[in-house]
């Protein structure tokens, strides 16, 4: 990044008792970025956020905020605000009091007029100007979430931390709030660092995503980088549900790698970073996205895979087919848009045999040692 980073973590380590929650984390976030920490439960996302927010202290390493070392500062001396997972609205204050709280504290007391104005602005921004007098318990989940946003934003922090800000909302609301969150970020230009375990959310919102695994950052990059070039099968599987198929490595010609599946089908693909050391005969894994399979024929230079349909799931706009590959045990999922199918009039039914085509760029070859 060219811009000077607003938040940096350098070799940060954090343990709870004998358990090391974070191993040597390094992270740089540029001003104005929207970065997401993504990973399964217990991988250390919240811990990372809490270290930056100041609610925990790092055992080792350095955390800087806009260039100054804040590793040992308490939360109330950091120019950062947090939107908590369950919002942590003060139940004994009205919406306006909640939002204004950060402007009444001794360290940052503002004159009443300024405070009122800023509270009003913040509430207007999140569309809750008319709810100022309500108590938090009188609001719906989505409204609470927005109050929490307003409360953090009214302080005009350099960085906004969000710990699973949408996870308590139901699907429809979550999708709507994702869009709002994105617009808010675009409008304000504040740096957002968000935690989520929902890959869809991460893909939609972020400039960059850091995929974490067991207290380490497995890969960091833009959504399309992660989707198109996942560094490991773990990342491939975590972002966008890849199909992972065991294979035997045959060799490479040009940039086309060739592998053999259980039923001896030969498939062409591209080697991922971690597969550079593969030698012919080694065990490998290929990853293919559900939507990259073609049911209408085999593309030029592509491979054909034979499978049996075991189930057909109707998703409205598209079908999801569950297949079993010849000679394999684990099922495979592919997605086909409904309109194309309907046009043909051919919806593959359970029991049908089917031939799938995949182009080499859609097949990523990995070494098999990684657990998926």
């Amino acid at each position, binding site marked *: 990044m060219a811009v000077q980073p607003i938040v940096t973590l350098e070799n940060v380590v954090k343990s709870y008792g004998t358990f090391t929650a974070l191993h040597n984390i390094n992270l740089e976030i540029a001003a104005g970025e929207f970065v997401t920490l993504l990973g399964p439960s217990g991988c250390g996302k919240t811990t990372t956020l809490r270290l930056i927010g100041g609610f925990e202290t790092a055992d080792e390493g350095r955390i800087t905020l806009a260039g100054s070392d804040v590793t040992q500062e308490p939360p*109330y001396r950091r120019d950062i605000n947090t939107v908590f997972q369950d919002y942590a609205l003060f139940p004994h204050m009205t919406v306006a009091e909640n939002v204004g709280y950060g402007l009444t504290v001794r360290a940052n007391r503002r004159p009443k007029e300024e405070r009122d104005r800023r509270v009003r602005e913040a509430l207007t921004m999140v569309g809750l100007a008319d709810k100022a007098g309500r108590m938090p318990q009188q609001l719906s989940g989505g409204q609470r979430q927005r109050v929490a946003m307003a409360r953090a934003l009214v*302080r005009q922090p350099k960085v906004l931390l969000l710990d699973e800000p949408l996870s308590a909302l139901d699907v429809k609301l979550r999708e709507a709030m994702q869009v709002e969150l994105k617009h808010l970020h675009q409008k304000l230009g504040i740096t957002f660092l968000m935690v989520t375990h929902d890959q869809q959310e991460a893909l939609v919102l972020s400039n960059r995503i850091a995929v974490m695994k067991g207290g380490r950052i497995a890969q960091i990059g833009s959504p399309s980088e992660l989707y198109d070039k996942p560094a490991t099968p773990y990342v491939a599987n975590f972002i966008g549900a890849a199909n992972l198929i065991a294979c035997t490595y045959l060799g490479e010609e040009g940039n086309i790698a060739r592998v053999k599946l259980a039923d001896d089908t030969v498939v062409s693909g591209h080697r991922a970073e971690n597969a550079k050391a593969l030698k012919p005969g080694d065990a490998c894994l290929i990853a293919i996205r559900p939507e990259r399979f073609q049911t209408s024929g085999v593309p030029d230079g592509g491979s054909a895979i034979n499978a049996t349909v075991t189930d057909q799931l109707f998703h409205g706009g598209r079908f999801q087919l569950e297949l079993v590959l010849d000679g394999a045990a684990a099922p495979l999922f592919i997605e086909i848009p409904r309109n194309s199918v309907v046009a043909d009039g051919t919806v593959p039914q359970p029991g049908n045999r089917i031939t799938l085509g995949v182009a080499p760029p859609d097949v990523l070859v990995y070494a098999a040692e990684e657990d998926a």
Partner: protein
Amino acid sequence: MKAKTRQTVGFWLLFSLPLAWVVIFLILPYGAMGMMSFWSRKFPLFVADFQFGNYLQLFIDPQYSAVILRTLKIASLVTVYSVAFGYPLAYFLVFTIRSEKLRTLLYMCVVVPLWVSYLLRAYTWKIILGTDGALNSALLWLGVIKEPLDIFLYNQAAMVITLTYIFIPFMVMPIFTALERIPPALIEASQDLGAGPFETFLRVILPLSTAGIVAGATMTFCLSFGDFVAPVLVGGPSGTMVATVLQSQFGAALNWPLGSALAVVIFTLVLVVLQVSNRLDRAGRVSMG
């Protein structure tokens, strides 16, 4: 059987015994007491009647209002001191003790005395506060005083100390529960918004624990208001409390109608306190979501 009928039968099977019991042994006795408060004294006993003389006497004879006021004063002091000591203790247990196990253990230590014979706990203070007691001997030994002091025992201060001692656990329990229920995220949110620890305490923790304080204060106030052991054991000549007077109306004075009237007054007072605390408590609870 129709579903409705089945419900009704089930309900009465369960509920008839408790209802009968409550009516016979709780509502009727309180009712009877209310009735008797209108009876009149007729030496040496009393006769059924309907007149307001007993209440009148309670209101015009200054000895009763004096005792009621004194009792109110003592109960209030006990409540205030119990909060003053109980709150820091509860706070300490919840926020300072990090280890879950130690916290539970200490909490138990606070709660357990509550159930250890009330009488004995009151009585121990007599041993401690006496002219020849533990406190004086300790002070003598430390050289703070030359002669034992007799200011500790047999006065209202002794009663307040004893009752405070007895009721602190009552205070700690609900405050502890209230503090424990405060989500740590709220405290973090406050700090996150720039408030230091003291400001966070004043503006977040304290308001959110009022329900606990109210619950504890109500209990402490009501029970110390009706206490009749402390005056006997550690109270001095001016230590008469309402319960002592009540007791003597049913004892020595043998004026049950007057006693009943006094009991009705206490009953009403307690109901008022409970009602007020219920209001406050509900406000607190609403604010906890």
